[in-house]
Structures are given as structure tokens and as C-alpha cells.
């Protein structure tokens, strides 16, 4: 049941025929695991919190640095030196006190990822490196829950939605990644890509619209083009194929 506060807070989105009060209650019951509280994580977490996702678990081990602030909009000047999850939880709670925020300041590893994903309905990939993304892909497959992938570089971003064993998984599509520890990025890129990931999450929870499955959407902010590439399951995929490890 929605409270009076929630009924008014979400009134503009429950006006959407595809959402309604029933949909809003579904969002409230949903548990989301967001891996990463950086550029993508900020955008995704803000919009899912504002939309009324009931339970958000956000995991990140990093502390806020000055060079984060051009894009990681959950973190402000005064947060420099603090744990990102402390900063994130504070902002998200003030944005929407109805949402339960479970903020965990640990590094995601092979040993703990399963417990982070426990009892969650889906996973949002807002990481900044391929090895952890692969771990997220594996745990999503193990738990048979969807993975909402996003990545950014400069003015470019990419996003796709993965439904385990039904659509191409991350490992079906990725074989490597551009080298380098630090990547260039303008804040508007994770804002765009994170918003699309959040939209996909909401659609998935509500069972509405057409998910970004079997498709890789690449955003080019410089040319202002969105290009959709077809993806296909790899029967030999080591994560979801017949010969999976």
C-alpha cells in the first residue's frame, strides 16, 4: 500500500497508464543492487530513488575525490575524502525518505558478490572495469536475475539489458576492453546512460514496453546519434553457453 505521502509524491508518474497505482506498488516492493556509486551509479540511483524503488543496495569501496565531481553528482565538494556510500546514502535519503538505502562500502569480489546480490530482483552494472562487470554477469546468471549494463568513455556510452539465458549476456558480447586505468568522460555521458539504465529497470519491474534486449545501444554525444547494434547469444560463451565454466 502506498502512503499518503507516496501517493502525492508519485502522482505524476502514476498518471502514466502503464504505471498507475498498481505499478507504483510493484516499484515499492522491488529490491535493486547497484554496483558502483560513481558516474553511472549516481545517475541510476538518483532516478530509481526518485521513482520510488523500495529497496536500493548500493556498493562501492571508494572515497570521494575532487576529480570525481564533474560527473558523480551524488558527491559534492564537502564530501571529498568521505566514503562514497556515506555521501550517496545521505543524498538519496534526503531525495526520498521512503526508499530504504542499504549502502555498503566494500570492494566487490568473487567471494562477496553473491551476498550483495542476495534477495535482489535485479542488478545494475555501474562499474568502471571489466573484471567486476564479468562477476556481475556471472552472479546474474547464477541467480537468474537480469543485469542492466552501462559503460561510458568520453562523449560515448553504451547500454544493454540482459535477461539470463534468453538474451546475449555480457560475455557473449565482450572479449576485452580498451586499456587504461583512467578514462576520459564528460558528466553528461553517464547522466544519459544511467538514465537509460534506470528506465530499463522501471520497465522490467512493471513488465511494460520493449526492453533493450538483444540490442546494444551506443550513444555518441558528439554527433548526437544513437545507434542500435544487434547482439546474439554465443553458444560457446563461457558464462552462459553450453561450455560454461
Amino acid at each position, binding site marked *: 500500500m502506498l502512503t499518503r505521502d507516496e501517493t502525492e509524491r508519485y502522482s505524476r508518474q502514476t498518471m502514466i497508464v502503464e504505471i498507475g497505482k498498481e505499478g507504483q506498488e510493484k516499484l515499492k516492493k522491488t529490491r535493486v543492487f547497484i554496483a558502483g556509486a560513481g558516474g553511472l551509479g549516481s545517475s541510476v540511483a538518483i532516478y530509481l530513488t526518485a521513482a520510488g524503488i523500495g529497496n536500493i543496495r548500493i556498493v562501492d569501496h571508494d572515497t570521494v575525490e575532487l576529480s570525481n565531481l564533474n560527473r558523480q553528482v551524488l558527491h559534492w565538494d564537502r564530501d571529498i575524502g568521505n566514503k562514497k556510500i556515506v555521501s550517496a546514502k545521505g543524498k538519496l535519503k534526503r531525495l526520498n525518505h521512503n526508499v530504504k538505502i542499504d549502502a555498503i562500502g566494500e570492494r566487490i569480489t568473487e567471494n562477496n558478490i553473491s551476498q550483495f546480490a542476495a534477495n535482489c530482483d535485479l542488478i545494475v552494472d555501474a562499474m568502471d572495469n571489466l573484471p567486476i562487470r564479468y562477476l556481475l554477469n556471472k552472479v546474474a546468471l547464477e541467480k537468474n536475475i537480469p543485469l542492466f549494463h552501462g559503460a*561510458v568513455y568520453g*562523449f*560515448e*556510452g553504451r547500454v544493454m539489458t540482459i535477461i539470463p539465458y534468453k538474451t546475449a549476456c555480457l560475455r557473449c*558480447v565482450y572479449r*576485452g576492453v580498451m586499456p587504461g586505468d583512467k578514462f576520459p568522460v564528460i558528466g553528461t555521458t553517464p547522466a544519459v546512460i544511467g538514465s537509460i539504465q534506470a528506465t530499463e529497470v522501471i520497465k522490467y519491474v512493471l513488465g511494460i514496453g520493449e526492453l533493450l534486449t538483444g540490442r546494444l545501444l*551506443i550513444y555518441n554525444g558528439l554527433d548526437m546519434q544513437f545507434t542500435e*547494434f*544487434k547482439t546474439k547469444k554465443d553458444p560457446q560463451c563461457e558464462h552462459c553457453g553450453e561450455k560454461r565454466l
Partner: protein
Amino acid sequence: MSVGINIHQSLRHLTNGKAIVEVDGNTVGSCLNNLVQQFPGIKPKLFDEKGKLLNYVDIYVNLESSYPKELAMPVKDGDKLSVTLIIAGG
């Protein structure tokens, strides 16, 4: 046989700023070789020292992945190739 290759944004400084380069070839590999002949500076951005496609370079033919055939994948006149790079920033 003419095929258009859409060059990734970050590589366009190696193709005199061209976003699309017209090449000749009947496979993905021969098209990329023709691209390299026209713009030699792009070679190390696509291939390793043994001539193998780098694992973060993804070639699409008419918006469909060329994997796993990749370089051996046949193309025909008028096809569109896209050179994309796998990114992982967050």
C-alpha cells in the same frame, strides 16, 4: 566492391577526420586491410603485432556483430561496417 566503414570517433584523427571511409574488399579482413592501406596510422589501433584483431575492437556488418567469423566474414557491395571499441568506464 565498395564498402563504407564507419570510423569510431576516437580514431577519426587517423582518417583525416573522416567519419566514413569507402574501401574495397569482399571480407571484413580485406576491407580493414584496404582501410590500413589508405590510413596506415590506424593499424596499431585495430590489430596486434601478429595481425590479429585487438580483443576490444568490435566490427559490425550492417549493425550485426561479425563475431566469431570477424575478419573472415564476407561482405558485399554497399555493406556498412562499423568499427566500435569496447569501453568500460563508469
